[in-house]
């Protein structure tokens, strides 16, 4: 975990230095580069120092929350990223919830009724979902629901009619703030929810398929275990056998996969989905920064996302221990 963090910082650090072109120009942008500013930047970045010193400076300033200034907006990068973070998390968490709530039960059903029609259907849908290009799927959903049926909005987080003060940054929460409800009633919340549906569905597709597949294979393995037979021999109802005895054990790989999915869904899904739905989150910001060759932003994004991934992995390890007593006990004993 520590080595991965180290690797992430190294990657972010060298990113700018291996890019073809002058790192100073990359960092301050090619537009406003008069010699004065250039020299100032060289000193500020410590580019006259050795690489190791530069790297240490980079890490120290990163620790202090200084990741540079965006070339495009001339604002602090960290501020820009943090301002967009809630939108991405809101979308990612909604997508993962949908995926989990539909995918896991579907996988259980497929495993319990193995080789039935239901199993076949669930597995067919899941391999489709697994193979679908997200960016296309989003467009297809827009075609069906926004253009064809006209029941969902096409883009954004909320209708421009509403003026919602960003308190938490999570639109679903901000629209429920007392003064907002006072002004608009619950229509703002409804609008935010409506805007969330399609992007969340788009993002949920791949994790849903993965959840269903993982759950199924994990359940199939557990269902053939001796303790499931014991549970049946106790005279427990099939429902209890499946959910209390089998499912809990099957959860262990599901949680691991879920964690990995969380990361890939939130980040990968965000990059493509946010671009399609003009969702003002981190993913779209990164893509736009790449278009604008805004290297400080790219550098900071890699760093923050790397840290995020490491944290999520740590959380998964913890959950893993909580579910699996054999692992948890060993850890606490040592």
């Amino acid at each position, binding site marked *: 975990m520590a*080595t*991965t963090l180290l*690797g*992430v910082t190294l*990657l972010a650090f060298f*990113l700018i230095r*291996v*890019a*073809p072109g002058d790192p100073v120009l990359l960092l301050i942008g090619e537009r406003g580069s008069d010699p004065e500013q250039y020299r100032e930047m060289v000193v500020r970045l410590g580019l006259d120092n050795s690489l190791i010193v530069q790297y240490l400076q980079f890490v120290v300033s990163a620790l202090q929350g200084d990741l540079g200034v965006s070339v495009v907006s001339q604002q602090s990068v960290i501020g820009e990223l943090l301002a967009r973070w809630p939108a991405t998390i809101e979308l990612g968490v909604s997508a993962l919830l949908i995926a989990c709530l539909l995918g896991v039960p579907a996988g259980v059903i497929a495993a319990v009724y193995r080789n039935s029609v239901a199993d076949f259907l669930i597995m067919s849908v899941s*391999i*489709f979902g*697994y*193979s*679908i*290009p*997200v*960016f*296309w*799927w989003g*467009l*297809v959903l*827009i*075609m069906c629901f926004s*253009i064809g049926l006209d029941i969902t909005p096409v883009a954004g987080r909320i209708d421009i009619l509403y003026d919602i003060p960003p308190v938490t940054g999570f639109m679903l929460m901000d629209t429920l703030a007392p003064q907002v409800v006072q002004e608009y009633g619950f229509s703002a919340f409804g609008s935010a929810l409506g805007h969330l549906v399609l992007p969340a569905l788009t993002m949920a597709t791949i994790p849903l398929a993965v959840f269903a597949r993982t759950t199924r*294979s*994990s359940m199939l*393995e557990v269902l053939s275990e001796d303790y499931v037979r014991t549970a049946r021999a106790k005279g427990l109802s099939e429902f209890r056998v499946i959910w209390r005895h089998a499912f809990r054990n099957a959860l262990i*790989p599901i949680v691991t996969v879920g964690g990995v999915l969380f*990361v*890939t869904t939130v*980040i*990968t899904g965000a*990059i*493509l989905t946010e*671009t399609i739905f003009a969702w003002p989150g981190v993913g779209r910001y*990164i*893509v736009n*920064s*790449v*278009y604008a*060759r805004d*290297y400080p932003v*790219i550098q900071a*994004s*890699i760093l923050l*996302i*790397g840290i995020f*991934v*490491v944290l999520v*992995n740590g959380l998964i390890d913890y959950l893993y221990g909580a579910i699996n007593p054999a692992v948890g006990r060993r850890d606490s004993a040592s």
Partner: protein
Amino acid sequence: MQARIAIGFRLMPGGWGNIGFLVLVSLLLLGFIAPLLLDLSPYRISAELLAPPSWNPLSVPVLGTDDLGRDMFARLVYGARCSLGIGFVVVAVSLVIGVGLGLLAGVYGGWLDALIMRLVDLLMCLPSILLAIVIVAVLGSGLGNAIVAVTIIGIPRFVRVVRSMTIQEMQKTYVMAAFASGSSRLRVLWSEVLPNCVPPVIVQAALGFSDAILEIAALGFLGLGAKPPVAEWGAMLADARPFIESHPLLVVMPGACILLTVLSFNLVGDALRDRLDPKLARL
């Protein structure tokens, strides 16, 4: 030897994989043979813009034309060629590098192993699309750089599987015996360890193909990979976006082609995994 022959016989993946295999073969034929037989050009501009599909295989723009009057069918066919060709290059290069690194890590262990595996962990921990975008951002956008990016991302899967197979095999008695009988390390690797890595590597290659095609298409869609006018499915999709309301088929067709190709590779990969590598069936 026997193992190699057996793999030869098992090339047809079986079950649903066979269907995927047939689809891929027909896509290959379509992409690489059809342009030789038919008069197809993905760039030729006709007077008729945004012509609707005729669905008549005998009339010329079978699937209509795009906003510049280019034959959609021709573009899709060249797109297949593009995706499969790039997929092949990506998988081939990342396979060679990945297998090499995996063998190195597995055989020599120690700091070399640690270094390689840390790099692999780093690559695996960051989401692949993000990594691809960042690599493209560093190298500059364009199809060539997109291919480099996707190739780099494709490496870790091979390293991991080959490394674990190598470590497993090196502990087996017959490998020990080969060493004991005085064979050189390289020889043992080549004749004893590598053949055992073939089944899982084939599986990873099939799955790597589908990932590579998806990623190339995604980069093309974001405008960071193939650039217009190249007939690449992802870029075509991006080009067609403005016509989503008036001519939805322009959007549907390239995406459906990506889906079909990726789905076929996944079917083949799954079937191969079930057949060749039951241990990995859970992953």
